[in-house]
């Protein structure tokens, strides 16, 4: 018997540690000798905490939304009586959403103990690097990656083999392979899940990359905000060293030495840009510089360097093991393999999903994501975070691949997929992203530094009901200029959320500016609260809860709101039990 508790960051946030503690206690109390293990995130965040009970025949029962209070009952049933408690187990529907996915980068996440190198090895781990060192030349490795068609999963989608080859061709003995694990897109957590759930895959991917390009040293630049990921990575590196997968003369073939270290980033979105990341690694302010020279020629400490994203690297061992053509068999003509997405926002089944490229967006949102929360109307899905854009209902059939997504004005990005419903205001959404990029602009380029601020000011004004004729055109003009006048990806893409919402939701901007109305009823300044005379029974609840005493009326008589006093906090609507408070 074995009990496995999902302990990724999201599981822990949902209370997995408390559940783990409760199981430990319960087992001790009953004197049961049962193996208690942990695993990473399986991706079904909306069902966390999740535990698996594996019986002696190896049959697995998955319990979801487990609380410490449920533990006694579950252990009693499964350990003593040999039964299942059906009401707590995962539903068939949820099980199916998992089956619709194709897991390559996430192949081990939630399937094994990330803190055990033995489990990784048992699942075929470190076989790929062994194969490379023992029987494959670096050129053959690069060729295999070329066949696979793998493109960078961090955002830009540059062919991985090309970058590796460029670093390989650069003269010099000292080269570096760097992993960008500084996942900064708000609303995306794919990389964290791999770091926490399967750190050895990343290590092996870096080993293979290092071997292919001739880099003897690897650095993982990881967000300091991911303490659990850092902890598990450290452990994994130590274990790999001990087993001889890291260090000198690997596999005793006299062909390859490799060392790996972690550098904790200190929080700057711009460090997702390669040259900014390198500056940060060197202990400087993370500001980008002009390319060329590209990092492949002059990177970290002026040496040839290659930077790949976590998900990209996690795919590598699988490609070497199964062959580039197996990877290329999935996906579309120009986008091969699978992609991991963090499906969040107004979606029923929020979490991580890995799907083959080319799948229609609709299937991801409705078949895997389960559709919109509370069955409200779908409005748009935001892809690519602060660098991306919104895709509206009319384009829901879009195929999920680099080129099709780019055509819509959004980008594939690192994999954030935030679903929005009818209650999301698109102007406010654009303002939210601009606020983010404005804060994260490093300040080097004037267009980015000041342009984003000006755009934010205009958007804030529109949301406050002070929009003017010409604002939309001004936003468009500024947006184009910022794109042209910025050095790095941050500035070049910062206007995207605004431009794409104007493209598809221009009418919503116009309603804000000309009619002074927010159709989604989100922009407080544009709302008017009133009492529905037919529904109000005069219970006085709203009047008692109004923070500014803007509501008056006698008991059992219809109340009214003094608009000059109303601060539009919405408290009256929240407390009213008779749907008598309306908002326009």
């Amino acid at each position, binding site marked *: 018997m074995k009990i496995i508790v999902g302990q990724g960051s999201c599981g*822990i946030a949902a209370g997995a540690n408390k559940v783990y503690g409760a199981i430990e206690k319960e087992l001790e109390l009953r004197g049961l000798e049962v193996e208690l293990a942990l695993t990473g995130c399986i991706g079904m965040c909306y069902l966390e905490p999740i535990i698996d009970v594996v019986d002696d025949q190896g049959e697995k029962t998955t319990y979801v939304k487990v609380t410490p209070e449920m533990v006694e009952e579950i252990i009693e049933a499964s350990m003593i009586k040999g039964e299942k408690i059906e009401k707590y187990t995962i539903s068939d529907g949820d099980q199916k959403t998992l089956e619709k996915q194709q897991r390559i980068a996430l192949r081990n996440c939630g399937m094994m103990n990330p803190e055990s190198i033995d489990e990784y090895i048992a699942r075929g781990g470190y076989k790929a690097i062994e194969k490379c060192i023992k029987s494959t030349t670096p050129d053959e490795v690069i060729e295999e990656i070329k066949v696979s068609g793998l493109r960078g999963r961090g955002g830009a989608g540059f062919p991985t083999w090309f970058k590796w080859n460029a670093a390989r061709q650069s003269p010099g003995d000292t080269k570096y392979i760097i992993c960008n694990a500084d996942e900064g897109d708000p609303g995306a957590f794919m990389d964290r899940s791999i770091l926490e759930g399967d750190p050895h895959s990343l290590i092996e991917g870096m080993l293979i990359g290092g071997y292919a390009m001739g880099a003897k040293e690897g650095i993982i630049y990881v967000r300091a905000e991911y303490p659990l990921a850092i902890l598990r990575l450290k452990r994994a590196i130590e274990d790999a060293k001990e087993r001889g997968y890291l260090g000198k003369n690997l596999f005793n073939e006299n062909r390859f030495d490799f060392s790996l270290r972690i550098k904790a980033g200190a*929080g700057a979105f711009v460090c997702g840009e390669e040259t900014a990341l390198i500056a940060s690694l060197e202990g400087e302010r993370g500001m980008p510089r002009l390319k060329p020279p590209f990092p492949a020629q002059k990177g970290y400490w002026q040496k040839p360097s290659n930077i790949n994203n976590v998900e990209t690297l996690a795919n590598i061992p699988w490609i070497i093991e199964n062959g580039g053509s197996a990877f290329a068999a999935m996906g579309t003509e120009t986008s091969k393999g699978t992609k991991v997405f963090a499906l969040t926002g107004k979606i029923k089944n929020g979490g991580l999903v890995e799907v083959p490229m080319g799948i229609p967006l609709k299937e991801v949102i409705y078949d895997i994501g389960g559709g919109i929360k509370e069955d409200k109307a779908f409005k748009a899905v935001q892809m690519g975070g602060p660098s991306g854009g919104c895709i509206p209902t009319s384009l829901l059939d879009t195929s999920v691949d680099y080129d099709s997504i780019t055509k819509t004005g959004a980008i594939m990005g690192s994999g954030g997929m935030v679903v929005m419903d009818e209650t999301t205001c698109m102007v406010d959404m654009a303002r939210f992203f601009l606020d983010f990029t404005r804060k994260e602009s490093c300040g080097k380029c004037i267009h980015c530094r000041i342009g984003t601020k000006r755009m934010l000011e205009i958007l804030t004004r529109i949301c406050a009901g002070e929009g003017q004729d010409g604002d939309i055109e001004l936003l468009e003009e500024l947006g184009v200029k910022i794109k042209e006048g910025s050095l790095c990806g941050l500035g070049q893409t910062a206007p995207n959320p605004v431009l794409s919402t104007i493209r598809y939701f221009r009418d919503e901007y116009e309603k804000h500016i000309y009619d002074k109305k927010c159709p989604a009823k989100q922009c407080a300044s544009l709302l008017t609260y009133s009492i529905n005379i037919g529904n109000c029974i005069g219970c006085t609840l709203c009047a008692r809860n109004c923070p500014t005493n803007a509501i008056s009326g006698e008991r059992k008589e219809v109340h009214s709101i003094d608009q000059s006093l109303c601060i539009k906090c919405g408290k009256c609507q929240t407390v009213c039990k008779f749907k008598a408070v309306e908002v326009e």
Partner: protein
Amino acid sequence: MNCCGGSKAIEQKQQDVSIDFVKLKEMFKKYDGIDGSLISILQEVQEMYNYLPIEALNYIAEETGIKPTKIHGVATFYTQFRLKPIGKYLIMLCQGTACHVNGSKAIEEAICDELNIKEGETTEDNLFTLNNVACLGCCSLSPVVMINGETYGKLTTDMVRKIIRDIKEAEEKVQKGA
């Protein structure tokens, strides 16, 4: 903001903190001869004091030979670093996209109202500091706050007010007990 206007306040508060220079010097040894370690050093200092005391920054400059302006430049560039002490409870309010869509603004207003502070400020009793942070990565639990490492998800304004009041009450009890 902090570099000129705020420096007076920083110095005043810092009188309460005594810097253990011996310990700092010991820590520097680890990075001796390794170029580009400034960020790691600053992270360790912040780990020790929960913020970057100005004396410690000056001492780093003295010991490492890195110019104070550069140290200050790096310390103010990254969001992780703070130049002011924080309260006993650090409330990190997630401002990721999912939390924003699911109402983090209302949560922020409730916290600010409950504590009578603005984002980035500390309450007068030094009990709470409110910081907005980009994505904590628990999007399916949005809106989310993390208070001293503990995550609270699927929040409503009433829930967050209660969480704060409970902490306050617990603190008061401890105070009285002492």
